[in-house]
């Protein structure tokens, strides 16, 4: 009797308690998909970057960092993607804050704000060229109003790409921030109001601290989107100069110079820079309160 009580449960039972059972096999197709279409090409690329035609194992990386034309793409990309991501997040907060309640036409307004996602970068670029270009409506209005003497250059330079990143990135940021905000118990602000907190203090002391972790996550996602910008950097940017981002450098290396190892090295470095920024942001996020945003039971 005591032997039975003391016996360890069957192996299968013990594994099941740790979540290992035959249902795990259902994961197999998805795992296979990820391995063949993501992990293998990724590792292949990393391997390729260490097999340059000249300069030894680290030759491609050395070339990247010694060539200023290549090296500076890091800063060019960061100069575009960091402010764009920051603006997207910061602009989303007040708009989402105003829109978290229920009101008439909320759905219509949300749709309008989110539509740019569906347009795609190329259509956005075309719109930008038509609107902000040297002969676009914007400049023609300024000129005819006598506000400027010559067209303001807003496309085919830094600003064209920046606008494009904001137009395509804002809807993502807005939707994320709106859902984070909706998750914050509205009775918290009401409680703060009865305790004497004015509008700004309620936001600053209650809502913002609870929203901050979500803002960090939102920033990371929009940053990654903006960092890998390629089409708009070419179409509305200045791909040979101020908007020569890393993805253009990688494209050049691969399809103009046919230097696949160098292109792979650029791609790997892109990933590393992104990881560094994300690690910094998430490190800051870890310092914040990230628990429940409900006010109690119920």
């Amino acid at each position, binding site marked *: 009797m005591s032997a039975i009580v003391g016996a360890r449960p069957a192996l299968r039972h013990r594994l099941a308690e740790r979540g290992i059972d035959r249902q795990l096999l259902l994961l197999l197709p998805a795992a296979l998909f990820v391995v063949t279409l993501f992990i293998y090409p990724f590792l292949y690329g990393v391997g390729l970057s260490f097999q340059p035609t000249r300069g030894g194992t680290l030759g491609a990386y050395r070339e990247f960092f010694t060539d200023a034309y290549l090296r500076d793409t890091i800063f060019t990309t960061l100069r575009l993607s960091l402010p764009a991501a920051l603006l997207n997040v910061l602009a989303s907060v007040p708009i989402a804050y105003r829109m978290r309640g229920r009101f008439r036409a909320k759905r219509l307004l949300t749709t309008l704000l989110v539509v740019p996602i569906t347009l795609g970068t190329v259509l956005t670029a075309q719109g930008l060229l038509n609107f902000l270009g040297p002969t676009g409506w914007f400049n023609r209005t300024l000129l005819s109003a006598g506000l400027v003497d010559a067209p303001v250059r807003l496309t085919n330079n830094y600003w064209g790409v920046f606008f494009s990143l904001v137009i395509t990135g804002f809807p993502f940021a807005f939707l994320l921030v709106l859902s984070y905000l909706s998750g914050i118990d509205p009775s918290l602000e009401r*409680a703060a*109001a*009865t*305790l004497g907190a004015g509008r700004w203090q309620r936001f600053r002391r209650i809502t913002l601290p609870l929203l901050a972790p979500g803002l960090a996550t939102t920033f990371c996602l929009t940053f990654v989107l903006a960092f890998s910008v390629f089409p708009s950097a070419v179409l509305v940017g200045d791909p040979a100069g101020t908007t020569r981002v890393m993805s253009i450098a990688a494209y050049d290396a691969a399809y103009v110079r046919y230097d696949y190892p160098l292109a792979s090295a650029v791609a790997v470095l892109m990933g590393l820079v992104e990881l560094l920024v994300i690690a910094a942001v998430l490190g800051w996020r870890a310092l914040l309160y990230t628990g429940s945003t409900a*006010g*109690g039971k119920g």
Partner: protein
Amino acid sequence: MSFETLRLDGVSRSFGGHEALAGLDLTIKRGEFIALLGPSGCGKSTALNCLAGLLPLTRGSIWQDGARLDVLPPERRGFGMVFQNYALFPHLSVRKNIAFGLQMRRVPRAEIRRRVDEALRLVHLEEHAGKLPGQLSGGQQQRVAIARAVVLEPALVLMDEPLSNLDAKLRLEMRTEIRRLHQSLGLTTVYVTHDQEEALSLADRLVVLRAGRVQQIGTPEQLHTEPANWHVADFMGYRNLLPLRAGPRDGTGIVVEFEGHRLTGTPVGDPAPGDEVIAGIRPEDLRIGPAGGPGVPAGSPGVAAGGPEVAAGSPEVPVGGAGVPATVEVVEYQGREVAVEARTDGGVALNLRTTDRPAIGDRITVSVEPRRLLVFPAGGAT
């Protein structure tokens, strides 16, 4: 900060054409404990939110002594509020939650510390001061919410069903706690609840609401013994509400006929003979006698049919007509007493309480004193 009277003058609130609160008139004196009582959707929480300033009024006004209050935003009214879900700031420690209102009022740091310590002591949470609300139990969270509201020494404390999320035992403890705080701090409290027992035990005065309208305002005793209409009676524990037809007046009493038995009751309002009325009786006011009632001559209307319990009582006590025979169907154990559901021969279920232990299927006779049988006009509510 404090006031002598707070006057609600025709306070009304509509939501998209639906009137959630219609013309609430109420004067609250300093130090009073007022309970707003009613079923869900009766407008009691609406009234509280209007008082707090969280909902603008559709009509009416609120006056604190001579000053008009309903035009002020919530942060400038100086009322403390305890929310149903506590609404504690999840990212702030217990101490910071309680200090929040004092910080908003720019109270000096040393005084904040002293007053928060005092509030923590008041609700017995000294050792939890550094914890986040999520680490506390429901009862502890509720105490933090109360401390956060009363630390400001507000002119008025508003409580929105603060005990509804607690389990039964804790609810009783916190109920006493709230009443104790109200007395010891000299607070003025408006308390919203749907639990009549809670309201009766806590409040100095009760306001019973139904469908946005005031049904009755009075002391617990007034509401308990003299409900103004059958809706209030329903809420005050008159579980037996029998739709009957009014008979002739009998002195100050009124005769109603129930399944061929003439019962004498006390009229509330002015039901005329022939009117449809509702007879209300508390379960504990129904008396049980053994079967055999129908056998007793109807010539002894003053005495219930020979039940030993009734017969043993004072013979001067008039009993509302002869006993009504019924069969015991359900017996619920409730400690010293049992709750019995008995069905009359006419098929009407009666709820009663007794210290006897009737068995299921027993034949009994049920009777009631005239002053314990209230006869309301069937329309009743305003």
